[in-house]
């Protein structure tokens, strides 16, 4: 079921088109990744969806509410974690959380209970009575996330949640995001880390220069750039001598010799390993390792964005 539906979203700053007519939807309960380099238009998109900025044109429906006309109603069911923390430096962690809960109309008892729970969940209990401005970057980001979910939003918008913080905190945050998903929260996440997108997102939109250049599940994206099935072999022996037999056996395949002990066999169809290894064995090539090479999201990204720049240059 679609919980967010965006059609022809556009953002003009003066005459600079930061978001160029993008359309996408987010399914209920999924982690939707918005992946793109700096300046691609990720934050601009989040700001328009959450009411911090006015779209220059579009239709946005969030949980069946028209977000362009009725953003205050939408804001009740969404949580927002901005790229830069926007909590109050002079207030302590606990008070910050309670204040954020109060903005959503939560009662005193309820918000204090929830604030304590969240401090605990984010390993910030001890820091709870220290002023926010004394927090480390990782702690700040965690408290900002806690503030974004204190009112139990249906949809959570996370703008680069792991950018600029230490590895350990980043891992903790990714785990928390996955836990939220398990509890049924729909998550919209922007990132410029390919690996992060690949690891935690269900579906990804690649955004470059304000345009979505590709959208789909992680597997779909990778398949789209796959030129065939690749088996990489490490061996002892002379591959050159068996090239002809291999081509007879696997019509249409290509052999790419990488070094004197490794080669790649590229084929349209998946390559059955047993006959391949047997053939090589019979020809005196002893194989130590055979593995399928899958393209990474990075390959996809480079290919697509490479194409994009080519197209733009023409």
């Amino acid at each position, binding site marked *: 079921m679609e919980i967010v539906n965006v059609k022809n979203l556009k953002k003009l700053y003066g005459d600079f088109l930061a978001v160029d007519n993008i359309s996408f939807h987010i399914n209920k309960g999924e982690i939707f990744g918005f992946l793109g380099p700096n300046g691609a238009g990720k934050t601009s998109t989040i700001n328009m969806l959450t009411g911090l900025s006015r779209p220059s044109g579009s239709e946005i429906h969030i949980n069946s509410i028209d977000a362009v006309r009725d953003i205050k109603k939408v*804001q009740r069911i969404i949580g927002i974690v901005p790229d830069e923390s926007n909590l109050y430096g002079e207030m302590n962690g606990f008070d910050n959380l309670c204040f954020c809960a*109060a903005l959503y109309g939560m009662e005193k008892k309820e918000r204090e209970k929830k604030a304590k729970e969240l401090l605990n969940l984010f390993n910030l209990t001890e820091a709870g009575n220290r002023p926010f401005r004394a927090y480390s970057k990782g702690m700040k980001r965690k408290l900002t996330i806690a503030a974004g979910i204190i009112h139990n939003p249906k949809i959570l918008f996370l703008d680069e949640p792991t950018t600029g913080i230490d590895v350990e905190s980043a891992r903790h945050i990714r785990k928390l995001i996955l836990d939220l998903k398990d509890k049924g929260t729909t998550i919209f996440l922007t990132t410029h880390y390919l690996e992060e997108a690949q690891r935690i997102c269900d579906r990804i939109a690649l955004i470059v220069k304000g345009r979505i250049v590709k959208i789909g599940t992680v597997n779909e994206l990778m398949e789209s750039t796959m030129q065939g099935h690749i088996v990489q072999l490490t061996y002892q022996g002379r591959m050159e001598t068996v090239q002809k037999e291999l081509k007879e056996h696997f019509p249409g395949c290509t052999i790419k010799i990488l070094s004197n002990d490794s080669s790649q066999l590229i084929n349209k169809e998946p390559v059955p390993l047993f006959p391949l290894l047997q053939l090589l064995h019979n020809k005196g090539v002893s194989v130590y390792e055979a593995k399928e090479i899958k393209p990474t999201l990075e390959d996809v990204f480079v290919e697509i964005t490479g194409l994009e720049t080519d197209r733009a240059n023409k």
Partner: protein
Amino acid sequence: MKTLTAFWNILIKDIRNYYLKPPNISWGIIFPLSWTLMQIIRSTENIDIIQLLPGLMAMSILFGTTSMLAVTITFERRGRSFDRLLLAPVSLSILVLAKICGAVLFGCLNAFVPVIFASFFVSLGGINWGILFTAVFLIALTSTLIGLLIAVSAKEVFEAQTLSNFFRFPMLFLCGLFLPIQQLPAALRPISFCLPLTYGTDLLKGTITGSSIMHSAFSILMLLAFAAGLFLISRRSIQKKWIL
């Protein structure tokens, strides 16, 4: 109910974070206090204190309110925490009201610093307190809204404070406090009547010294009209400037 919770907590947070902080208390209380003392020391007869009271009150309110939003709004804009308020499910009107409420309260309290001082020296029996409170409240409200308009136009805290001084001092001289409006050059007089403070001062003067030039009901109406107008203009420019 939910809106009320949000409103109340924004107000309380501002009071705790800003209004009760030493620099603001000193700006808001010490300044009018020292002015009052200075004037009282200089004056020899009781009658002078009563004559001075409207001016002192107006000044205390003006100084307590106009620069306040420069702090509470411009500062939060810089630190991006104001975004949090814009992202909350609270309408812009309620948000603006919650923000100005603290400053209005603060201004009203400031106004009574000189009154309390004066009460030690002279009898305040002849004052119509109903009108006095109304005047104080409306002056506080309109000056806060002017402060809001300034805060909306400024990017930096110091810019907002400079701007508010730019408006504050001419306003004090044109509103008829120090120099009666009839004695102002004819070219400046129309400007006086475009300032909410002129009507506020006249109300105060009317009830404290009995020397008003306009009917009090008229002044109240004018102040209300200014308040409504300023509120709408500020809200509109917030919407235009901050929700990009």
